Structure formats: C-alpha cells, structure tokens
C-alpha cells in the first residue's frame, strides 16, 4: 500500500462524510492508504487575497507544518476548496521568505515551515500517481452507458498557477471518468462558479447559476453531474430548480468507488440512475 498523507478538511467530517468514505474505499482498492494528519485545522476556507494580512495564512501554513512533521512532502485533499486554499497559501509563502519568516516567528509553538510541501487533489493523484491506464485496469463495475458531466467549478482550476489542470479546457476529470467507463458529457458550464457562499446570503443568485449549469449539462446529454467540492455538491443539489431537468449529483469519489467495486455511499438518485443504466450493476447486485 502506498501511504498518502491526507488532509480531510471540515466538510469531510460533516456534510461530505460519504465522499470521504467512498474515496478512502476507492483509493484502498487502488493500493493507496490515506493517512489522516494526526492534527489539522480548517484550511481557511476562502483563500485570503490580502497580502499584508498574514494572520489569514497562519491556518493553512500550520497544516503544511503538520505534513512536514510527519516527515512527508505531499498531502492529498478531496475537497476542491481545501485544495485551492492550501495550495495557494503554500505558494504565497514560497514566493516571499520575509512573509514566511514572520509567520514562522508568530507560530513559535510549531516547528518552522521550511516550504516544499506539495498539495495534491484526488484528480491529480489519479492522473499523476495512479495513472489513467492503471485506473482503467482496476475497474470491475464499468460505468458503461452513464453519461456523466464533470463539474470542476472554480477552485480546482483557478487561478491558473495552482489549478489541477488548464483553467479553460481542463481534461483530467474527463479522462478519469472515461477510465471508469462512463461517457463524458462535455458542457460549456463545467468551469463556471456555482455561486459558492452566496448560498447563505443570496440563495436566489446561486439558484440562477445552478439552473444554468444543470440545464447546460442536461442539454449536452448528461444524466448525472459529478463534483469534487462539498459546496458545489450542496449548491447543485439544494439549489436545483423545481422545474426542468433535475440531474442527480454525485461526488467523484463515489463514482470511483462504485467502478472499483468498493462501498460507494452514493446518494439515492445517483445510485438509482447507475443501477438502472450500467449492465454490470445487475451482476453486482447478485454478488
């Protein structure tokens, strides 16, 4: 088993437990053991754009120190938001030793962060560590016939310097879904923002965006939307319009687990769709 240091983030322990359980099971099937950081704190959620407010970078950098304390130089996230925030903070301190030394001086209760911890997202791990072909060879329940729309959202691909792939024409999500046997529904809204935290104060704005995203996926033949962010997942599910297409939404980790024959913890709508579509599903049920 390959040991991969793992930063869960808050949502994986609450709203997105199913994503975590499914991803852990799926990665175990791929020979990767997720080793949760023994201590960790919130990534910071929204990356701070204030260059001079170093306090906002203390939280993310503290997590990077935890990775360093494990004797490791990389850490995996499942959440796109944690991925963006941790990765950007790592770059922020790498870009300016003065900032890093001030943050280190403030955190006198920790070892100094030396830099160099790489933050990975599940998609990047599947591409760079597991490999598409290797992934495809491990599939036992191919998602044949499922037309899945890969929804990147923002923080996986933007800004460019931290994105897991090209911000305008990414392909890693598509390649992974193809490796799982799904048909990929290309749709132009795949890197549009879902509205994120406006869901708290201005849910109508989010509902409008979600309506467009879902309609675009449906118009391009999708019968399922796949996410990698608990906030996107929440918005796409909870803010779906009451009329028009209501596509099921599932996490990447859940489809991965399904295809690899692991416990997928799928939401009922998505599970029903996959059960009803894939030829392997009937056989899998009998097992």
């Amino acid at each position: 088993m390959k040991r991969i240091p793992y930063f869960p983030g808050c949502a994986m322990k609450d709203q997105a437990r199913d994503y975590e359980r499914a991803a852990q099971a799926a990665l175990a099937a791929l020979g990767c053991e997720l080793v949760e950081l023994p201590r960790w704190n919130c990534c910071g959620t929204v990356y701070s754009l204030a260059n001079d407010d170093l306090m906002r970078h203390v939280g993310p950098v503290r997590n990077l120190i935890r990775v360093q304390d494990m004797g490791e130089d990389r850490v995996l996230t499942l959440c796109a938001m944690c991925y963006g925030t941790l990765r950007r903070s790592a770059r922020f301190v790498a870009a300016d030793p003065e900032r890093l030394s001030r943050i280190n001086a403030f955190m006198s209760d920790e070892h100094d962060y030396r830099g160099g911890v790489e933050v990975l997202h599940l998609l990047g791990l599947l591409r760079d560590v597991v490999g598409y072909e290797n992934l495809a060879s491990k599939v036992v329940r191919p998602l044949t016939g499922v037309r899945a729309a890969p929804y990147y959202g923002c923080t996986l691909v933007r800004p460019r310097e931290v994105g897991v792939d090209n911000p305008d024409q990414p392909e890693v999500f598509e390649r992974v879904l193809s490796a799982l046997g799904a048909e990929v529904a290309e749709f132009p809204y795949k890197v549009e923002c879902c509205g994120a935290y406006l869901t708290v104060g201005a849910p109508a704005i989010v509902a409008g965006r979600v309506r467009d995203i879902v309609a675009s996926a449906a118009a391009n033949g999708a019968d399922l939307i796949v996410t990698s962010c608990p906030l996107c997942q929440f918005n796409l599910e909870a803010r779906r319009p009451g009329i028009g297409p209501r596509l099921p939404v599932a996490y990447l980790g859940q489809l991965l687990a399904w295809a690899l024959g692991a416990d997928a913890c799928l939401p009922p709508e998505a599970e029903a769709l996959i059960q009803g579509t894939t030829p392997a599903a009937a056989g899998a049920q009998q097992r």
Partner: protein
Amino acid sequence: MLTVYIMGKGYRVPEGLTIMKAMEYAGYRLVRGCGCRGGYCGACATVYRLPGDYRLYADLACQTTVQDGMYIAQLPSTPAERADYQLSQVAPRGEALLALYPELARCVACNTCTRSCPQKLEVMDAVQAALRGDIRQVAELTFDCVQCGLCAMRCPAEIAHYHVWQLARRLCGAYLTPRAQHLARRVAEVESGAFDAELDRLMGMGKDELAKAYQARDIEP
C-alpha cells in the same frame, strides 16, 4: 524576598508564595478573582510577564508561584455572553455549536487560546473540532476546562470558548453518551421511600450529634 509588581505597584514578598498569597501578603483583600484556591474553580485568572521576556503568560493565581520581577494583573471576570438555549430543544448535530456560536467560524487557527490555557488543553483543536461538528471530540478535549476565561480574553476572533465547551459537554452528556442504568434504579429507590427513615433521623439530630455523625461518615478511599 523578591519583588513583584501587582497592578503596576511593586511589593516585596517572600519566595515560594502563590500569586494569590503574594497578593494577600501585599495587603490585597480578595473579594473577586478568588474561589476554591485549589485550581478547580477557575476564578483567579491572571496574566503576567517576566523581566526580559516579551511573552504574556496566563495562569491561575492559586496555582502559580511568584518569580522575581513578575508583572501581575488579575482578570477576575470575563465579559462574555452565553447563548440562550433549551438543551432539550438543541439537536446534537454538528451545526448546533455554530448555530449558537457563529463566531467560531472566525477562528484563524492562531493557537493563542492554547497558549493561554492554564489547564494546558488543546483549545484550538477543540475550536477546530467544533467547526467540523465533532461534538464528542470537543467534549473530550475540554473535559478539564475550569472556565477561567483566559482563552476568551486572548482570542483575536473574540470567541467565548468556555461557553461553547459547556454546550458541547452538555450535548455530549445528554445525547451522545450511553445512559447510566443505575441512575434510573437509584431514582426509583429514592422515590419508593427507601431513604426516608434515614433522612428523618438526620433531620431530627441536634447540631453536635450531626457534627459527630458527619465526622464518622463513610468516606470513599
């Protein structure tokens, strides 16, 4: 003898005293900021600095001995609002803590709370557990909290930690911990009048007799 500065004024006090006793030696009569004198009640929150050291230390006055040159200030009370709730109406779900204490989300993980805890609790880890809705973990991490309020006074996010911890422990005790079966049996015993005769006997005793009985009571080893 050594010199300490209490609320900005210098005093010569004997070595080996606690901060609390040194204050009394210096002539203070403590009507607030003093309770059990045993480190349990959390009333005597105190901050101090030492000469040549920039750090602001926080501790309980009854548990900390004076050092030469110590600058001492007491914080007899922490202004903090406890959320208004009926425990029976609060579901023990992750969002319960955040719903009643939304300022938890302002935590930037600076760890100042942990550094200021006289009980040496992992206070920031508890805030983080609260943020991710792990009520049981919060209750476990804060079991030894004495509610002195020092974390709340130092927190840049202005969280009133100890009120949150109390809610978490209450939720944990009320909903997440198995019920003690012997408690129900004992309550039934009390209600059936099993102890009435013994209570009547005690109520009928004079002061001296009662004192004697108290001295001779069974004490757990």
